[in-house]
């Protein structure tokens, strides 16, 4: 498959760009932060995204989706990365939606996916328990349909209506559905450095409403769903990286020192040119991986780890160079570039960082 967008995908990308620039630029994230917004995202913006069909973009038409594919969703993630837009897209659509759509029964899809498409309920997947990404570890237990345990770093946990929770039973790891407002569920919101939210969620004999797949399917479900989510997150990170880079290049041209534009200094030029090259590699990995989801490629795990590792590495490089090249101005909160640095570190840690995926890639290749 050609590594370029189709005309339809290109059109979607353009609308997304226009939408986010118009409705949710970086200044919107600043406002959410400064006014200590209770939701941590702009409900109105999210409603419009739902209306445009983006919450159902990848899901089957029979459940109210557009069946447009992840390559398309990746463009929305990409554009939302450029504007650092906070929305339930990752938690509800990419993470929870993928789990249900890939592994749920048709009844479950009817029940949950159509709600996601219509924007009726928000979801969060609770699968981390350690402080470092470890999606296969679950001390959370299910006994007699009651779930108990504690989950960390539950993205958007504070606004979720429904939790999908990994937990262990005699049959192994499973994925369970729990009402976020139900008894025995305690949610503690943490605002993170990127002004987005993750929660610590404790379950104390919380009722299990439903189960995705069989009790022992958890590892399969989580592995594939996280790989898809890693690729979508990489698309978002690519957007942030490219935006930070193009702002930096613009600043290099504009900013004058010693009587000349600092972009004329060769050492900065070479560092910028090197970044350009690394970003090109990231772009290729992201589109290749997005297409691989849509093509149901059997090397998705490889691609997901390659992509998340490389994109994580270069996001770090680009955000650091951005601050350094902006100089003192970049250190001030008034300037927006710092938001990209902070978002970069959170997205790096989300769903496995560079270290995790470099190691995983080697393991996948048996060395």
């Amino acid at each position: 498959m050609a590594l370029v967008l189709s005309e339809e995908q290109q059109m979607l990308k353009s609308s997304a760009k226009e939408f986010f620039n118009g409705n949710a630029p970086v200044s919107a994230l600043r406002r959410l932060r400064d006014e200590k917004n209770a939701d941590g995202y702009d409900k109105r913006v999210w409603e419009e995204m739902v209306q445009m069909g983006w919450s159902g973009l990848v899901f089957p038409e029979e459940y109210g989706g557009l069946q447009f594919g992840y390559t398309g969703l990746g463009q929305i993630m990409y554009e939302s990365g450029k504007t650092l837009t906070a929305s339930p897209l990752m938690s509800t659509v990419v993470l929870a939606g993928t789990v249900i759509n890939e592994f749920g029964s048709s009844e479950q899809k009817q029940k949950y996916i159509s709600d996601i498409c219509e924007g009726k309920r928000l979801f969060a997947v609770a699968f981390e328990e350690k402080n470092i990404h470890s999606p296969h570890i679950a001390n959370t237990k299910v006994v007699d349909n009651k779930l108990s345990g504690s989950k960390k770093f539950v993205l958007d946990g504070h606004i979720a209506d429904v939790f999908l929770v990994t937990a262990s039973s005699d049959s192994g790891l499973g994925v369970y559905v729990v009402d976020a407002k139900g008894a025995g569920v305690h949610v503690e919101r943490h605002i993170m450095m990127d002004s987005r939210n993750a929660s610590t969620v404790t379950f104390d004999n919380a009722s299990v409403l439903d189960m995705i797949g069989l009790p022992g399917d958890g590892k399969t479900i989580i592995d594939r769903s996280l790989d898809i989510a890693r690729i979508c997150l990489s698309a978002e990170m690519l957007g942030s990286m490219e935006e930070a880079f193009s702002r930096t290049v613009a600043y290099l041209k504009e900013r004058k020192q010693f009587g000349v534009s600092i972009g004329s200094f060769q050492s900065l030029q070479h560092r910028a040119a090197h970044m350009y090259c690394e970003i090109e590699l990231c772009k290729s990995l992201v589109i290749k991986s997005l297409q691989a989801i849509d093509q149901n490629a059997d090397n998705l795990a490889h691609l997901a780890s390659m992509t998340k590792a490389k994109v994580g590495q270069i996001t770090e490089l680009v955000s650091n160079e951005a601050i350094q090249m902006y100089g003192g101005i970049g250190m001030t909160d008034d300037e927006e570039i710092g938001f990209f640095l902070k978002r970069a570190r959170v997205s790096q840690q989300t769903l496995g960082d560079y270290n995790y995926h470099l190691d995983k890639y080697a393991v996948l290749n048996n060395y």
Partner: protein
Amino acid sequence: MSTATQVNIDAFRSETREWLEANCPQSMRSPVKTFKDYFWGGRNPTFHSEDQKLWFERMRDKGWTVPRWNKEYGGAGLSKSEYKVLKEEMAKIGARSPLFSFGIHMLGPALLGFGSEEQKLQYLPEIARGEMWWCQGYSEPGAGSDLAGLQTSAEDKGDHYLVNGQKVWTSYADYADKIFCLVRTDKNAPKHTGISFLLIDMKSEGVSTRPIKLISGSSPFCETFFDNVKVPKENLVGVENEGWNIAKYLLTHERSMIGNVAKMDKTLDEYAIESIGIEDSVLADPVNRIKTAQWLIDEAAFNFTLERALDEAKAGSPPGAKSSFFKYYGTEMNKRRYELMMSTGGFDNLVWGEEYEDGKTARDFCRTKANSIEGGTSEVQLNIISKHILGLPKK
């Protein structure tokens, strides 16, 4: 070192140890962490605890806020080796600095090197006694690395200078009592000449400040504005239009201070082991393991290099442009350290609450990004090394 001196030093060491043991309150024996752990002095000093006050006053009375300054300037007149002993003994019990002060570390050296005797006697004792909070006014908006391109003017009005302009990155200017400034006293001279070093009272009419909020969330710096501020002529340090020499001297001095890689509560490997854990007798994250080992080797090598530079200085080799090396490498290492800590610390380190403590590592991480910008960017240091140490030609 002769045996006689060695005896004196040993005696000084045991005296010092005893005194510190008796006089340093227990709560003053842990690393400074939050703003409240610092005592900055000033006309209206704020003590954050009784112990802080006690510790400061005791040290002040010994002259140990500025141990190497002469007694008439408020110091204790310690010799180099006595000073070394004092630092070692303080480090042993983890004793904090009793007074944080740009007066001590920046204005002090400038006055000692370039001030008149009157100025020394006027300003140094009050710095030593923590009675005056000084801040620094070098940078200007838009100047950045091109420090000498400064525009704040000081016009000669006979008995006073009339100062107009704007400074930026003035540390705690909103708290400080006075500011030491670089100002342009000759607009027609070439860039590096025509600059003077001037002392200005922040209470003067026409001075105003505006805090700058940083990406770390804190506001240690201000913009400071001068609008027709009258400054007495005796506030000039050194020779008019030759202030750039003082600035260069202080920048080198500052650079060597910044270049130190600060000690932390935990070494990076301890931190990684605690946070990530050991599996099959190695750190569970194999990539982090490699980066941590590399950083610790570099840290040790950097510290040996500091040690070697001191030994070479003792043996008579001038440090020269080496301060640029320390500034560059030390700040880059500190950034790498925090980059690793963000990776090692996992999800907990991403949290960013209302308070400094609630998000400390993330905030400190953000703060480190300025290390390679302030006090001369890494690029400027590399330029200096390339020109002054390697002798590579200008274009």
